[in-house]
């Protein structure tokens, strides 16, 4: 055996050992290495095996048309257990949960409730994987569930504690494609990606354009006032939608290169800002045209309109099912949660109609997938202005045929990130 092979196999052993610490068998670890595309880097032995087109840990990549049942790692907690006492810790983005709702949960179960935050999903997963945080329930996005399950970070949930899942949540999310049977997760908030703009500044009739996404490539007049969401998936996805490509989980280098080229062209056209401040800058007039999430449009109108400004200037358009991304966040219980019963009760609590509604309209602006919270009721109660009904997500928007940014292979992730890095480098 050559020296290179020796070194490679030593490194391979190191990685296998590390995966063993995550509870994986040697066979599972090797499978994971192959699936991740790391084989070439870690060992010439493994590099001989073709890269699998699977996700983390060799698990299949879930897509709206290809649902995945995740493997059970351990058993759920038993039925009828008493809630724990002490401090219950929720792990979430900052500003993505109403404090009054947390306090209400604390009062109901007589516990102190604490919020620990992360800046993004990478940080969330890293902290969970390294056990850097001592949390009892965590927020996740569906594209990370395969990863979290493969790494045995989550524990299966016991549905007997969460009757509100069946009672209150949209049927389309009772058994979502990324977690068939809701073995590990319950849904939290949902949103679409579209275009937000100021009707007093942008003259085009965006919804009636032949290709509304093309507004960004015709935004010379809005130079300095146009913006793109600061996310590799969303930015590159926008360029793909502009070209009519709706496979937003593609790993085809040609499609990704074309999207990069279009984004580079966009810099010349309107010099867009790349940020996530569109939830307030549209209302403040600092931005006139911005790729936006549906919740952003509502937040602009609810919280950030300057005095004397009416909400009708804030507009939102999205392309509809199968033509624009729709996403939802979820709640899950970390395997190391010290208060798993409370974690289950929290999942049920946040799916209670009143709590979900309060969290949405009083703080986050992101809609929970709850039966009683729909476009008609929100418009009727005056929560959502009629002209922003497009910012309300509907149950039928989910399901087969919808578009959702989902887990890519490791190689796919690298391609998307490199293209995005090239775009934001401005060269």
């Amino acid at each position, binding site marked *: 055996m050559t020296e290179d092979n020796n*070194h490679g196999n*030593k*490194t391979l052993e*190191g*990685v296998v050992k*590390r*995966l063993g610490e*995550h509870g994986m068998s040697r066979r599972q*670890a090797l499978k*994971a*290495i192959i*699936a*991740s595309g*790391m084989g070439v*880097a*870690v060992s010439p032995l493994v590099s001989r095996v073709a890269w699998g087109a699977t996700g*983390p*840990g060799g698990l299949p990549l879930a897509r709206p048309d290809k649902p995945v049942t995740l493997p059970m790692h351990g058993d759920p907690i038993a039925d009828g257990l008493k809630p724990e006492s002490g401090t219950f810790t929720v792990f979430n983005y900052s500003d993505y949960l109403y404090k009054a709702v947390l306090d209400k949960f604390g009062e109901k179960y007589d516990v102190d409730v604490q919020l620990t935050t992360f*800046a*993004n*999903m*990478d*940080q969330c*997963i*890293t902290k969970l*994987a*390294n056990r850097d945080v001592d949390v009892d329930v965590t927020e996740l996005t569906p594209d990370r569930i395969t*990863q979290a399950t*493969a*790494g045995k970070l989550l524990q299966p949930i016991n549905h007997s504690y969460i009757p509100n899942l069946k009672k209150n949540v949209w049927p389309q999310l009772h058994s979502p494609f990324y977690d068939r049977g809701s073995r590990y997760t319950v849904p939290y908030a949902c949103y679409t990606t579209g275009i937000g703009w100021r009707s007093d500044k942008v003259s085009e009739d965006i919804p009636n354009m032949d290709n509304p996404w093309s507004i960004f490539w015709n935004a010379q007049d809005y*130079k*300095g*006032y146009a*913006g793109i969401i600061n996310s*590799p998936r969303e930015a590159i996805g926008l360029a793909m939608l502009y070209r009519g490509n709706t496979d937003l989980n593609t790993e085809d280098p040609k499609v990704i290169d074309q999207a990069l080229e279009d984004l580079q062209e966009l*810099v010349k056209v309107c*010099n*867009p*800002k*790349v*940020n996530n401040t569109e939830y307030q800058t549209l209302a*403040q*007039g*600092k931005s006139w045209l911005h790729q936006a999430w549906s919740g952003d449009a509502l937040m602009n109108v609810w919280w950030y309109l300057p005095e004397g400004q009416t909400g009708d200037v804030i507009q939102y358009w999205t392309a509809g099912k199968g033509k624009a991304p729709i996403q939802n966040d979820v709640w899950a219980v970390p395997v190391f949660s010290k208060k798993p019963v409370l974690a289950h009760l929290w999942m049920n609590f946040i799916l209670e109609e009143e709590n979900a509604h309060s969290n949405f309209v009083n703080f986050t602006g992101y809609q929970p997938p709850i039966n009683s919270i729909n476009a008609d009721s929100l418009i009727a109660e005056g929560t959502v202005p009629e002209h922003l009904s497009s910012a309300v997500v509907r149950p039928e928007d989910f399901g087969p045929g919808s578009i959702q940014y989902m887990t890519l292979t*490791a190689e796919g*992730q*690298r391609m998307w*990130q*490199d293209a*995005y*890095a*090239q*775009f*934001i*480098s*401005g*060269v």
Partner: protein
Amino acid sequence: MYPRWLWQACAAPGVFWLLLLFIVPFYAVIGVAFGQLDPIFQNPIPIWNPLHWNFDNTLSILAQFVPGERYWLVFVRTTKYIFFAVAISLLIAYPVAYYISRHARRTKTILLVLLVLPFWVSYLMRMLAWVGLLSPDGLVNNFLIWSHIDTDPPNWLGGHPGTVIFALIYGYIPYMILPLVAALDRIDKSLIEASRDLGMTARQTFFRVTLPLSKMGILGGCVIITLPMFGDYYTPQIVSGSPETSMLGNQIYLYFHGGPQPDVGATLTVVLSLFLAVLMAYYLYSVARAQKDLQ
């Protein structure tokens, strides 16, 4: 007589500090740059043994530092911004420092306190204040319209290189003034008096005595603000956010902040550090030469 070990012991906290907060973290960055990734979580797995380092990534990244390639162009843009920011900072800072050192007698302490005052407010907050001032309907534009200087003022925050350079100057200039004041204060006044006594004009005295003797302060100030500017990513993000004004720090941040390639971010950090080490080496060489000249 104090024992010799006492003086060496005095350096211990500094050595400990250097080890704990610079050498160990920097070695960790190197370990990440030349290390592996966790195949499931894509977290970096640092490789501590240099014999096992993997340089495949490094070579492909270095290949993008050649003229015409991505990192080269971003590096040139970053260097350009920093060059202008440092040069303008020096032009502003030197007269201020000169005034404080030479002419501000009773007000010297107050002026020094005022200089230190910005440090009481976080850098981020100071930048965000400028976002308010420079926004389309902010005070700056309102003033320009009111005074008829410009009835259609520009969108300063719309991705202008000038705004980024201005923000860098604003953010870092106090770090330039303080070493200059210290350097000018250290100049022996009798040398200046001797220069005047020997018939030099005030202008000649400044260029032939004061300026050369404050060279170390100028270099020190430039180094102190240049190093953090190269790693800065939040200033262009806050006051611009446009790809056209992004700096090398933004590329490092992107790869470190998330995604499957923290090793690329770490490698970029190492490359940047090597470049800055060359600048530092020149500074240290200049200091050594200046000290030799004085002896």
